[in-house]
């Protein structure tokens, strides 16, 4: 069996090697594809903090992905049309600066996660899954009919937003930014898992009564985890919007929430690199299977079934021979 550390190192090296090879071979689209995998991985890393450590099976994480996306879309839309953004009391100008957009995206997502978490954490189990789904659907239907920002058509941002000192239009540079964000999130998750907070949160998933009897409030632990989780997924949403230079309500769809969960299960729930491996495999499957047959969904479904039935603990569980946390 392979130690998990070796797998983690291999994954990071692989993620770096592919685009570097692509630059040498002038396979620009491979960079785009890898960037997509990296951003989806980032979103799933966010979810993994709530789901893998805290046991919060959120079927509505698309809310934060979408909010991040719309934060980017709205700010850049106002910047490219030179119209001020009216916030009621104040009106601000839009911006095409990535750092500003990222701050707004994470802040808005964190705030939304706090409100949604506060309400949803009253429930547990399947009820939690469903109430988070309900919030997702509310946002989805709202943006579909929100004509000011394109409704179902969404919004195109014609030029990718800028980052000081970089030319984000060059695919490999944008990849570098996304990769750095992913590494930071992974570092955060790693430190978090080993911290007092991570230990308490992990215990709150398994036995909330115990956490209470040592004088801690499991609800607050979970709420904070949910907020951090939402903020990271929100950042991923902003990056995803910049990758596509486009936002639309599909970023809020329940299918997207489901896909994020699936990425994590494929890779391994609660594992540091689970979401990354899951995203890489998912994007690769989508790309290669799609090239083989019109009816590739059937094969995707079959592969997912095999993973559930025979690969408990996801790919990492399979490779390390150790089952992951039970959610």
């Amino acid at each position, binding site marked *: 069996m392979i130690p998990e550390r070796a797998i983690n190192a291999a994954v990071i090296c692989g993620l770096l090697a592919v685009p570097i090879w692509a630059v040498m071979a002038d396979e620009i689209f491979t960079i785009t594809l890898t960037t997509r995998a990296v951003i989806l991985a980032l979103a799933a890393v966010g979810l993994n903090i709530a789901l893998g450590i805290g046991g919060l099976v959120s079927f509505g994480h698309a809310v934060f992905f979408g909010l991040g996306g719309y934060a980017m879309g709205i700010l850049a839309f106002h910047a490219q049309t030179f119209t001020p953004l009216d916030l009621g009391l104040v009106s601000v100008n839009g911006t095409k600066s990535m750092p500003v957009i990222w701050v707004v995206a994470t802040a808005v997502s964190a705030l939304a996660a706090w409100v949604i978490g506060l309400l949803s954490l009253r429930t547990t189990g399947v009820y939690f899954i469903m109430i988070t789904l309900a919030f997702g659907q509310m946002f989805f239907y709202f943006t579909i009919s929100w004509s000011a920002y394109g*409704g179902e058509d969404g919004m195109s941002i014609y030029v990718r937003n800028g980052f000081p000192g970089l030319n984000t239009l060059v695919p490999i540079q944008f990849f570098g930014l996304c990769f750095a964000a992913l590494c930071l999130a992974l570092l955060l998750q790693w430190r978090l898992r080993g911290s007092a907070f991570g230990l308490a949160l992990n215990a709150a998933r398994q036995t909330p009564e115990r956490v209470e009897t040592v004088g801690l409030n499991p609800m607050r632990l979970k709420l904070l985890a949910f907020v951090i989780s939402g903020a990271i997924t929100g950042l991923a949403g902003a990056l995803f919007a910049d990758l596509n*230079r486009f936002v639309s309500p599909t970023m809020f769809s329940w299918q997207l929430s489901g896909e994020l969960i699936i990425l994590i299960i494929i890779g391994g729930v609660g594992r540091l690199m689970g979401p990354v491996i899951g995203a890489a495999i998912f994007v690769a499957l989508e790309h290669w299977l799609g090239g083989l047959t019109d009816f590739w*969904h059937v094969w995707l479904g079959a592969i997912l079934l095999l993973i559930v039935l025979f690969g408990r603990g996801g790919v990492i569980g399979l490779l390390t021979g150790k089952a992951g946390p039970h959610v």
Partner: protein
Amino acid sequence: MKNTILASAAAALLAAPALAEVKVGMITTLSGGGAGLGIDVRDGFMLAIQQSGRDDIEVVIEDDQRKPDIAVQLADKMVQAEKVDVLTGIIWSNLAMAVVPSVTAQGKFYLSPNAGPSPLAGQGCHPNYFNVAWQNDNLHEAAGAYANTASYGNSFILAPNYPAGTDALTGYKRTFEGGIASEVYTQLGQTDYAAEIAQIRASDADSVYFFLPGGMGISFLKQYADSGVDLPIVGPAFSFDQGILQAVGDAALGVVNTSQWNKDIDNPTNAAFVESFQEAYGRLPSLYASQGFDTANLLISAIEAADVTDADAFRDALRAANFDSTRGDFAFGPNHHPVQTIYAREVIKEGDVFTNKIIGTALENHSDAYAADCKM
């Protein structure tokens, strides 16, 4: 889905000095709920390519699954990896909005075989963007015009609550001279229209206009027919297309709808198209198939006239629209959208098959309302 089809490979052996090879990227919907439309566009397009016998056009086809982010990703792939010269194929307005501005900004040509969202016809128009089907409002405007000639005085109008839906109702109201009894927005993807039909029954309207594409239209028509409400209905061609008429059945019989194409338009190109499409695919061609066919023929006409690497010359060749359209006369307006005649057609039954028959002209040489906003 990837199909690299070299039209008429055998012809490649002949040493005809061809112009530079043209690579076309087609992004369309081939799986999931809306796959029927994409398949028709693809089949119509490929039929024209095959009939041309050209060996210098390579078409790369990919499935967008009707998801905007997948479409954007595929467009990146077409531009970055496949290095195509021309893109085409997108069915849905929201996908077109996601893809078209970015690919035209990168200097590629985009020929739209179906979607024509208003921003791309007005302020967001682009010299490299050509719409071969219609501006989204066109068929709705034609429906309003038809309602005038049918002397309807008061219409109940409904559409899903999304941009194409609001555009549709705006389009109808733009030409319709009568009153509006009520204006109702339904949910996107709604399948039950009992509540709306009850409102229609309770209203004092003398006609109903609806825009409910795909499965929504099937549901509405079946439920409307069963409700006992007998006000005349008008709609755009999308709910009365060859692909879905069979699923609506008798409920659609006699309904008037507006379209820029029908299989009985009397010209040699159309007759040949209808016959060869049936021969090749074993079904009647749809509106979408005709649009795919016309798009391919426009492209071929431009390739014959100019080298695709000379963007200005190629653009002029496209703008000339020097090809035989299945619609008869075809010309582009100043914003590269069609100026064309739109017909009123009626659903009939030919033997066992439901289809349409032209009963009159709704709008002659019609352009669109946004051309004035287009500065290029």
